Structure formats: C-alpha cells, structure tokens
C-alpha cells in the first residue's frame, strides 16, 4: 500500500512522495559538532552550591532564633525577683468594728503578719532574698552557658558538614556514590 510508504517507507513507493523526498533531501540536517564552552559547568554541580548556601542561611536563622529565645529566658526570672519586697505580700492587720482605738494603735504600730494556727509565714529578710535571687540567676546563667555551648557545637558541626558537601561538589563525585538516597542510621 502507498499509505504504508508514507508511514514507514515500507511497501510500494509512491512516485510523488519519492520525488518530494529527493528534492527536499537537499535541506536535510548536516551534522555539526556541538561546541559546549568550557565555562559551562555541569548542571547538577551548579545546583548544589546555591542549595548548600540556602541551607547554611536557614541554619543560621535557626541559630539566631534559638539565641534570642535563650536571651529572653535569662531575662524572665530577674523580673520576678523584686516581687518579694512589694508591700502586697505583707498582710494587713485584721480590723473589726468592735475593736477599740488602743487596739488599732497597737496593731498599726506592730504590723506583724497574720499568724495562723498551723502555719507561720515569715517575711524574708532582704539579704536572704538577694542571696536566693543571685543563686537562681547563677544557676540559670550556667544553664544558659551550657545551652550556648551546645548551640555553638551544633553550628560548628553543621558548618563542617556544609564545608564537606562543598568540597565534594567541587571535586569529582566518587564512582560508587548512590544519589537520591537518604542515609540511614
């Protein structure tokens, strides 16, 4: 069939199609070597560098966020400490309508806190408060320092890994390397 010749050049050749092929064959593709400039690097390599830079940027942002979070935690207890000295903690003397003037005078002179049967509340002395707050601040500061060291260690590790990845991208990849596989363990 002549339709077969148009489709896959099989069967009886169609004279007109054959003639067209001969004429148009002059315009056929003439092979030319492709000249890839040396400045063009491999596509995948160029992709890894921006990705590693982006990863480093995200990591740095994360670290900054952690750092700011720790800073706020350190400030928070200091703001609570002065509440020990506020007068609200000293309870007012009990006043009844039946009490006379002398009682009132006595009560105002001695503004002792109310004493219950089972518990005694004492007003902490200023020196003791200071010592407590300084102890708690010191403990929190030590804890913050520890966290800071851990953060720095994590950042150093991340930086080392990024450097290693960058070196691998600049060098030829090893032959046994399997791409698109996540490490396990």
């Amino acid at each position: 069939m002549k339709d077969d010749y148009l489709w896959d050049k099989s069967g009886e050749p169609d004279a007109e199609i054959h003639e067209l092929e001969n004429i148009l064959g002059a315009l056929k593709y003439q092979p030319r070597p492709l000249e890839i400039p040396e400045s063009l690097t491999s596509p995948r390599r160029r992709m890894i560098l921006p990705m590693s830079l982006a990863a480093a940027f995200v990591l740095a942002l994360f670290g900054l966020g952690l750092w700011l979070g720790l800073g706020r935690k350190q400030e928070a207890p200091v703001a609570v400490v002065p509440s020990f000295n506020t007068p609200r903690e000293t309870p007012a003397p009990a006043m009844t309508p039946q009490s006379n003037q002398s009682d009132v005078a006595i009560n105002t002179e001695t503004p002792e806190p109310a004493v219950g049967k089972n518990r005694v509340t004492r007003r902490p002395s200023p020196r003791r408060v200071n010592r407590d707050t300084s102890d708690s601040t010191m403990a929190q500061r030590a804890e913050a320092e520890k966290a800071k060291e851990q953060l720095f260690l994590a950042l150093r590790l991340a930086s080392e890994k990024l450097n290693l990845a960058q070196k691998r991208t600049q060098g030829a990849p090893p032959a046994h390397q399997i791409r698109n596989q996540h490490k396990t363990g």
Partner: protein
Amino acid sequence: MYELQATANMLLLSTEAGRAIESTPPKSTPPTLDKRDYEAALVKQVLEGNRDQFGKLYGSYAQLVHGILLARVPRDEVDDLVQDIFLHAFKKLHTLRDPAAFGPWVAMIARNRAVDFHRSSREKVEITDDLQTTGPNGPAACGAAEILEIICHLPDAYRETLVLRLVEGMTGPEIAGRTGLTPESVRVNLHRGMKLLRQKLGLTEAI
C-alpha cells in the same frame, strides 16, 4: 523559561494525544524500552558531570530539532538555533523531571524557541500567490526552498510532521518516538498534511 514551558506543554500534549483522532492502527510502536533506558542513563551521566555524554544526546536529537525549526523559522537561522537550543538544554538539564523523556523535552524547547524567535523578530516573509498554488507540473517545477515554503504555511501539526518525514527522512514511528506524540496522531498528521500538500502542489492524490 523554555524548559518550564516545555514541561507544561508536555503535560498538555499528553492529554491532547489521548484525544487524537484514530485512523488505522499503526504497525510500529515508539522506541523500545531499552533505548529509553539508554537515553535516561545518558542524561543521568551528564548530570553527574560527564559532559561528553551530552554529545551522544545531541547526535541522537539534532536532526529532530533541525526538522522542527526548519518548519518554523527561516532556513539560515536554523543551524545556529539548533546549537543554541542544545546549549540551553545542557544548562537546564537538571530541570528535566523524567530522564527518559529527553526527546519530547528538547522538541518542546525547540518549538517554544521558534515562537520566541518570531516574537522577537517582527519581520515576516509574505508568501506569494505563485508559491501558494503551483501549476500542474508538480514538485519537479519547484525548488526545495519553494516546496518548504509551501509546507511551512500548512497548519502547525502537519508541517512539522511533513518536514520530519520528507526533509529529514524519518519514518512515522521514529517521529512518534522522538517527539512524544502518539503514533496515531503522527499517522493522521502525515496523511492529512500530505493531502493538503498535494492540493497546494497541484497533484492528484494517489488512492
């Protein structure tokens, strides 16, 4: 830019191909799985830094890209554009999602590049009435450039398929395999395109 358009167009193409008009079923099928695997391996090797392997892909598909461009842009621009398109494909190869689909991808880049070429260069060559319909002497009376000019004024789908078949000498199954079109679509485009070309050349259709 071109490669993104190419990816989007390939998605559209796959749905259009599904709706292609069916005529007689083709005897041949698109390229074998081995060839697709081979090309996918080549693409992976290029992505891993073996740039020499890109020369093989170029060797396999330069003819296809040449044909696609020849159906759309002036002849003297085609050779330079073929080189440009393959350099662009080399730079953007990492955006190719399916390594086995290098052919359809680069074909779509070529089509988009041809559209861009016409967008940037406003000058258009008007076809004369003499070229649109030749006399009863047929193709023998016309030169290659004149016949190509007539083909280039046929509808898009027909001219590309006809150029690949008549100029580049590819068979229908080869065209289907390399462009990503279904064999049915290629067969229909070839048949209808040839019918129109015969009319323009003043030939009687052989039945």
